[in-house]
């Protein structure tokens, strides 16, 4: 939509207004989405946080798919280093 590199007054005005219109909602929604995704990650990787997971058989097959997001997720959960021995992301 608006190109930030457009240095004209009009363009900057547009960007400013757009930010004013959208930014807080964007932040709130993005954060809500991240919380939703984190919860899902928790279901799938529960055992790593010491939570027994009765549906291990089923969540296991989802683990490889979510491995990419793993690093950000475990950092947010408060684990400084990867709890997965075999996936040393940090």
């Amino acid at each position, binding site marked *: *939509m*608006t190109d930030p590199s457009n240095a004209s007054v*009009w363009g900057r*005005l*547009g960007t400013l*207004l*757009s*930010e*004013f*219109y959208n*930014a*807080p*909602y*964007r*932040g*709130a929604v*993005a*954060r*809500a989405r*991240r919380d939703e995704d984190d919860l899902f990650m928790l279901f799938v990787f529960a055992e790593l946080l010491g939570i027994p997971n009765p549906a291990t058989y089923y969540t296991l097959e989802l683990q490889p798919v979510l491995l990419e997001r793993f690093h*950000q997720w475990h*950092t*947010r959960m408060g684990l400084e280093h990867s709890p997965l021995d075999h996936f040393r992301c940090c």
Partner: protein
Amino acid sequence: MRDDIDYVPTNRFVLWGHHFTAVAGAAPIIGPGIAVIWGWLPAFLWVVLGTMFFAGVHDFGAIWASVRNQARSVGSLTGDVVSHRARTLFMIVIFLLLLMVNAVFAVAISNELQVTPSAVIPAWSAVFVAIVIGLLLYKMHVAITWPTIAGTVILYAVIYLGELVPIELPAQILGLGPGAQWILILFFYAAVASMLPVWLLLQPRDYINGIQLFIGLGILYGAVLITSPTVVAPAINPNVPAATPPLMPLLFVTIACGAISGFHGLVGSGTTSKQLNTETDARFVGYLGSVGEGALALVAIIAATAGFATLADWEAFYQTYGTQGTSAFVQGGARIAADGLGLPLAFAQTLLAVMAILFAGTTMDAGVRLQRYIVQEWGTIYNIKPLQNGYVATGVAVGACLVLAFGAGGSGGTGGMVIWPLFGTTNQLLAGLTLLVVSVILVKLGRPSRYTMIPMVFVTTMAFVSALIQLRDLYAAGNYFLVIVDLLIVVASIFVMLEATSAFIREKRKSAAAAR
């Protein structure tokens, strides 16, 4: 706050702008409008000092506490930090406050629409303009600048149109006078507005409101700076009309928003905190938000004291306590704007009336929305299935507000402004409770709590004394309905206060022990 790379940080000024427009309701206009009956000096001092030492601390504190705890509301935090019973009672106080906010603003708007019929068309057009902008931006992905300019121009053009076509509601429909009719219409609007998707009405309307707010402040302050109007009202009024309540403590509850207001804590911890990037934003947004409020309150004081030609005019206007609210702002402000910027007087009056109405209106539907959330939450906690439904919950919320609006003001619906001091009292009590909860959190973290405790003690004391005075006055006036509401609030607040204080002492002891 968790540090992560998923988000583009939001500009603090944008965040401040949103918080400011969310909390800037009609209260910083109405409160000072009423309070100058005691003279301009007390109101002025309270606004200035209150904003700096009280409101800033309170608003910042509420947002900070929330941001630190996954953006939960202060009510929710009370459950963790004090006790679950305290939380229940806190929620009751919040609910009652919201009831009063909605009821009193509905009455204020209704009154203003009757006094300034030229404002009817412009005020309602704003809703229409907002919806159109919402559709253009969200559904049709139109770039923002042109709709903004067009929308603003249209709004001002419509104000001119409103003067040509003033609207008055019929004197009697089904036994209801125009006041009652307006109140019903307003609540219907608020209910519908609170249920529409955010992007359709709430988002564009807040946006337009924000623009209006800044333009309005610009016009008024600009006019003031240009004409330097004389303040005709006395610094301290020696001829206070007979039935006016005493300055102490009523000043402090008559002006809430603009000095310190519990409502801000609700908005701050309920909405703003979800939008912030980091804890450090909380100070900027919270503190400067209250400063903005203070600025609005100040200009309202100026309008109410310098907007009259002579002292005699002013005294004639301020014959009885509590009726001046928005009119002082509209009449006085319009005179200043007309003198300073050469705007036609009628146009300026309509303009300011529309501003006040729009601000009150957005607070109303935010208030109804917040009430709905509380009702739904009660439905979940106490397992009352019907309450969990959005429509039912909204109905309950609006129904309760209507009961208050008509119960307090009579079926004419015009006497509702008598709620104002009670509203202010509840607001301050809530602010006090919020400060207390924030203090407990601070003590738990081993931080100094005096900056929150001192305002808390002051505000709570004033609020309690006011509540008791009003109990007496309302009882004497035979308004038993409000007497009961007042009692409810007092009792609930005492409980929360006691529990929170004991939590505070407990935490103090713990941290003192830990320090040894």
